[in-house]
């Protein structure tokens, strides 16, 4: 009996050991994405859309291609509620990977969390992806090797808006004498582009009226009455959350036309325009990616993931919206970085340091965009050691009362003008922190 018990005990231990080993081996054969997501709280609408799109794309790659070169993609979520301290806690909890699968990169979609984890990411050699947001000077990869403000940094954003207003006015020279107001969120995010707008106003000779809206922005009567008094030709809306629909409603209330308000990248979703109802009709905003479901990659996700009942969105109607598509675009960029890094380091799960190399060598031309089914969804871009943004172009879209319609081709930011300002700032940062910038001419 004792022997039987021993045998049974041994078998159980062996079985458990095998199971554990197999789970580790299986997980160890995966590439892990730690997700500092936010699905509750005031910013949940953005979080659920973005992380829904990101996860659905990872699922799509797993189902359609069996992962990246056979390496399955895995992920787990940690709820930040968009709170910085929770974001840092989540970073620390997830950065080491999951069951042996190494972490590829972090994607917090929060300026505050990105700032708070920037130095940690660099120390941990884990790429920090701040698609369409983040520190502008992190574009300079020689100083910020692990930070990637992919597609669009805040300076490029306002530069492209001024270029568009110039186009609408008949050329940048015609901006002289015009009046442009900027209505910005009362936060470091909102204020970040003010010096660039001042620079551009001096360069092109337009008058700049800057108006701050205190957080959260649910009262804007005085700002819009000032706008009515000042009569600007255009208003740039640099908003966030509730500030955006309130701006549109108050503009209507004070008689300012919506089709002369241009929203920035965080004023460009359905959640920003729809709650304003009729007041939003005609509102223009920038976008790095159109909404819509017509792109082959989205059709593929629909067929493979959503129709199979595996979609991440609680509300399937949000498929193809601005936040969802941003998540898909982010997924494409992350997966492509893994793919490129695998070509150099081998078809296996990679460390954050190796995936960083992949991000730095991202190159999407029309041919590659077509291959991944994202032509028209994602802009052509090429990153390098020195340039961690890669794109710097936006398109303009207009709210027709129900949905966004793209109304312009790609409008490029004046990146030549911005680059020295970015480098000034990044070198100042390097000096403060005692960082020796990399020599990008020697990087391969």
């Amino acid at each position: 009996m004792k022997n039987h018990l021993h045998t049974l005990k041994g078998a159980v231990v062996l079985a458990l050991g095998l199971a554990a080993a197999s789970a580790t081996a299986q997980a160890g054969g995966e590439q892990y994405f730690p997700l500092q997501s936010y699905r509750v709280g005031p910013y949940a609408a953005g979080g659920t859309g973005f992380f829904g799109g990101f996860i659905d794309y990872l699922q799509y790659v797993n189902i359609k291609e069996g992962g990246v070169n056979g390496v399955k993609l895995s992920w787990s979520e940690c709820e930040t509620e968009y709170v910085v301290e929770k974001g840092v806690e989540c970073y620390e909890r997830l950065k080491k990977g999951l069951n042996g699968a190494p972490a590829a990169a972090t994607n917090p979609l929060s300026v505050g969390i990105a700032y708070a984890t920037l130095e940690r990411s660099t120390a941990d050699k884990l790429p920090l992806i701040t698609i369409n947001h983040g520190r502008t000077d992190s574009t300079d990869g020689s100083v910020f090797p692990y930070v990637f403000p992919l597609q669009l940094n805040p300076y490029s954003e306002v530069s492209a808006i001024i270029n568009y207003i110039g186009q609408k006015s008949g050329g940048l020279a015609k901006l002289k004498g015009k009046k442009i107001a900027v209505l910005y969120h009362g936060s470091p995010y909102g204020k970040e582009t003010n010096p660039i707008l001042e620079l551009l106003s001096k360069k092109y000779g337009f008058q700049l009226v800057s108006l701050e809206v205190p957080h959260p922005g649910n009262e804007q009567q005085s700002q819009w009455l000032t706008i009515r008094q000042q009569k600007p030709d255009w208003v740039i809306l640099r908003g966030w959350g509730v500030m955006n629909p309130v701006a549109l409603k108050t503009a209507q209330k004070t008689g300012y036309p919506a089709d002369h308000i241009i929203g920035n990248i965080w004023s460009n979703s359905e959640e920003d325009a729809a709650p304003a109802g009729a007041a939003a009709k005609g509102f223009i905003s920038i976008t790095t990616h159109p909404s819509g479901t017509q792109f082959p990659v989205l059709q593929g996700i629909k067929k493979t993931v959503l129709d199979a009942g595996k979609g991440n969105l609680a509300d399937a109607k949000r498929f193809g919206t601005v936040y969802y598509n941003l998540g898909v675009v982010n997924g494409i960029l992350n997966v492509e970085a893994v793919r490129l890094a695998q070509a150099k380091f081998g078809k296996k799960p990679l460390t954050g340091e190796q995936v960083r190399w992949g991000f730095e060598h991202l190159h999407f031309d029309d041919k590659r965009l077509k291959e991944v089914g994202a032509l028209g969804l994602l802009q052509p871009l090429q990153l390098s050691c020195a340039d961690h943004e890669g794109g710097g172009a936006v398109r303009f879209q207009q709210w027709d009362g129900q949905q966004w319609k793209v109304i312009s081709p790609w409008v490029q930011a004046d990146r030549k003008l911005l680059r020295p300002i970015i480098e000034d700032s990044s070198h100042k940062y390097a000096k403060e922190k005692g960082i020796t910038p990399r020599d990008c001419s020697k990087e391969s």
Partner: protein
Amino acid sequence: MSFFMEVLLGGLLAGVMYSLVAIGFVLIYKASGVFNFAQGSMVLFAALTFVSLLERGLPFWLSFVISLLSMLLLALLLERLVLRHLVNRPPITLFMATLGLSYVVEGVAQALWGAQVHGLDLGIEDTPLELGGLMLSRFDLFAAASAGLLVLLLSLLFNKTRIGLSLRAVADDQLAALAVGIRLQRMWVLVWAVAGLVGLVAGLLWGARLGVQFSLSLIVLKALPVLIIGGFTSIGGAIVGGLIVGASEKLAEVYLGPLLSGGIENWFPYVLALLFLLLRPAGLFGERAIERV
């Protein structure tokens, strides 16, 4: 001069919206001495319930009635599960309980109706209206009229009905009210339900202005200086406090803001409230506490 008048009138009308939220606080404070920090979450819960029902195809009036019933149910649950067990506890305990409740109510609202942002159209056009050379908002005028009607109804309830008499008795002295046979628990449920109605009206008007989203609960931050200035125990005080806060913050933002690099309207009302705390701690219409020492 007309610009000044527009800013002033716009501020006064915005102030009425703040008063709407503040009235909910006053009702509960008067009847139970509880500063209900969960009032903002109740506004959110009511508005989110209403708009979610409306979006599911229910008619306006039915959505309103069901939302109102849900607020009554919430009041019942609060009384049974929380307040009843905290009778005779220090005010800070009750305050902390409502602080916790605000998170619970928000969480339940999100679990029930999701985190999506909703537009709310009450059918009132919000185009500018030209009156005597001044541009005013139709919606704000409607909101002011709604607040006025609500105050009138509440005044009638408090002053002309038996229930109102009981509520006033409870507000004056809970022990004496119990001694003459008034059922304290029932009164608490009633007053929380009335605060729920006020929350629903405030939620609809604020929701139509901001969209129904989770930051709706942050409007309590606008009600706090209103209460300090008007007094915690007076509905009339909440109205006057709201008008003072609305007008002063708008004028300050327009005329002082440029000198102080802008964005001052969030903290300016609190400067006023601090001055009131120093000079008139009970507010303009609040009851002064007199204690035998």
